[in-house]
């Protein structure tokens, strides 16, 4: 990427974050519900309520509140959670690893399933195999992630209880972890018993998040692969004596992945959005679950912090996709 492109990119980042900050800030304040009323007992006097409002700065006008908040944010201070009485930064970053692990596990599952399906369908295109893959794509895509979640809970949590469907890890286990990246740390510490327990909890929500994305990947990559298999260079590879499977994997795949990548990136941000409800379904202690609690408690600073963090994640994913694009396409490398 050239320097000018990079600078434009950075400026657009700042604009994006500012926009998100404004929208969230205004939205949570004009929405019905009063954070003070949520935290105070029924016997409080009007004076107590007014004091609390002043304490959290809620007595000032919205533009002034925004400026004060923004001033703190640029210094890295996101305020104190009203419901948890802890620093928003600490609460949010404490939960982030759980969501990241879940989202990336779901992404990995989606890429493996979707990629495998696409390759199968492209290798045996025009046969019953492709029709079967199309059917899978149709079903997986038309059912939203939270319905998959409910289905999995009923199937593998209630009917045939082979997976844990609640929480991130069995609560009675002793955890030696120093970070909140439990899954990664359990692998690093070679505590595979804990890895298994974590995966047992994560697999169902991750599958629920992964299925729609797997269908998107499968559909787009399949179309792209079929197109590339008609390119002249794929034809040349066949005249060299290479098999259909070899041509698909060695000549077509890499060129087919590139156009699919942007769409996968966008869809992955949808998946991260999906964690909010799916985490709630599975009582998984991640950022999404925290976001719902924050909304229920009208915890304004916490909502603002979480939404901004989601914005950072979305922007980060898009940037990562662009970088992958450059890495995969030699034409873009010399800018």
């Amino acid at each position, binding site marked *: 990427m050239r320097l000018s492109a990079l600078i434009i990119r950075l400026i657009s980042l700042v604009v994006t974050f500012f926009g998100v900050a404004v929208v969230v800030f205004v939205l949570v304040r004009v929405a019905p519900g009063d954070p003070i009323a949520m935290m105070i007992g029924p016997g409080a006097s009007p004076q107590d309520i007014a004091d609390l409002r002043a304490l959290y700065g809620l007595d000032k006008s919205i533009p002034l509140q925004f400026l004060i908040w923004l001033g703190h944010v640029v210094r890295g201070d996101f305020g104190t959670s009203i419901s948890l009485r802890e620093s928003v930064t600490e609460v949010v970053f404490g939960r982030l690893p759980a969501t990241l692990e879940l989202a990336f596990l779901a992404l990995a599952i989606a890429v493996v399933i979707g990629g495998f399906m696409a390759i199968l369908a492209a290798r045996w295109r*025009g046969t019953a195999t492709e029709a079967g893959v199309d059917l899978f794509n149709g079903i997986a895509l038309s059912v939203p992630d939270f319905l998959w979640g409910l289905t999995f809970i009923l199937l593998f949590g209630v009917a045939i209880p082979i997976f844990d469907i609640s929480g991130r890890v069995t609560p009675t286990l002793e955890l030696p972890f120093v970070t909140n990246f439990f899954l990664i740390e359990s692998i690093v510490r070679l505590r595979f018993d804990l890895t298994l327990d974590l995966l047992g909890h994560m697999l169902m929500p991750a599958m629920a998040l992964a299925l729609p994305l797997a269908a998107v990947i499968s559909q787009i990559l399949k179309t792209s692969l079929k197109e590339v298999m008609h*390119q*002249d*260079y794929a*034809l*040349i*590879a*066949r*005249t*060299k*004596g*290479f*098999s259909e499977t070899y041509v698909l994997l*060695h*000549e077509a795949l*890499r*060129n087919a992945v*590139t156009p699919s990548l942007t769409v996968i990136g966008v869809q992955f941000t949808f998946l991260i959005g999906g964690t909010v409800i799916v985490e709630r379904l599975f009582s998984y202690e991640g950022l999404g679950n925290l976001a719902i609690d924050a909304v229920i408690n009208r915890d304004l600073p916490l909502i603002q912090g979480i939404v901004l963090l989601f914005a950072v994640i979305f922007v980060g994913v898009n940037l990562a996709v662009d970088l992958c694009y450059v890495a*995969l*396409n*030699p*034409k873009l490398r010399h800018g």
Partner: protein
Amino acid sequence: MSAPFLKIDRLSVRLRRGGEGRLLRQASIAVAPGEVHGLVGESGAGKSMIGRAIFGILPRAVEVIEGAVRLGGTDLFTLSDRERRRLVGVNAALIPQDPLTALNPSKRIEAQMTDRLTRILGLSAAEAKARALGLLEEVQIREPARVFRSYPHELSGGMRQRVLIASAFAAEPRLIVADEPTTALDVTVQKQILKLIAEMQRRHGTALLFVTHNLGVVAKICQRVSVLYAGKIVEQTDVATLFNAPAHAYTRALMAATPRYDRPEESLAPVRPEVIEALSQEIAQTDNIWAEARLAAAGRRA
């Protein structure tokens, strides 16, 4: 002349769902080692279909209804997929029409030139590299080592066609099919590439099937010619006869439609309707003979 290496016998091909229409009508072509055979015809005549049949990579929508394609005496259609790929990979190579789309954009030239040598011919990586580099020199590419490391988009169209020619000859095949290899190139480059292919063919003693719609090119490099119309070979002869005494009305019409610098006053003549009419009748006759034969066969079975 030695025995032909490529022998196509009465090859007929049709669309699977295309009814009675034929894409190739009993086409027969033989090319001996060291010989250059021109295959001429207008677009849609079935030239590329013959090219693809030789490599056993006809489109799925197309089926062979009769005939044989023999490489060194072995009929491709009697082989299993795996055997066919091996026979073709070792013995035949294609020089494609459009060098801009015939190279994989995400692979370096090195990988694209050596993949067949190591994986199909079983050369070691070092042998394959040495041979491919040698061939790049032979096709007069300056700085072969740099080109070897390049991606296709870093090379000009003419360079890419040279790379593809080198790649085809690197496998030391007994047969090369050149499918309109100069059509997509600049006029200035066309001549060089044509000369290069002719030189390489002579030096390596390869059988060359040269597919083109350009009679001028045929006159320059071919010894024998087949003229194809609607999938039927209407005339097959040596080049001298073709130009001095063309036997078929269509061939004469084709020649009249070729620009001549030495006789500019003769306006370019399109192929006249009566010639097309005669051709259609000729082809309909062949098709009728088949239909009758098939009816007779069906009668015998009944």
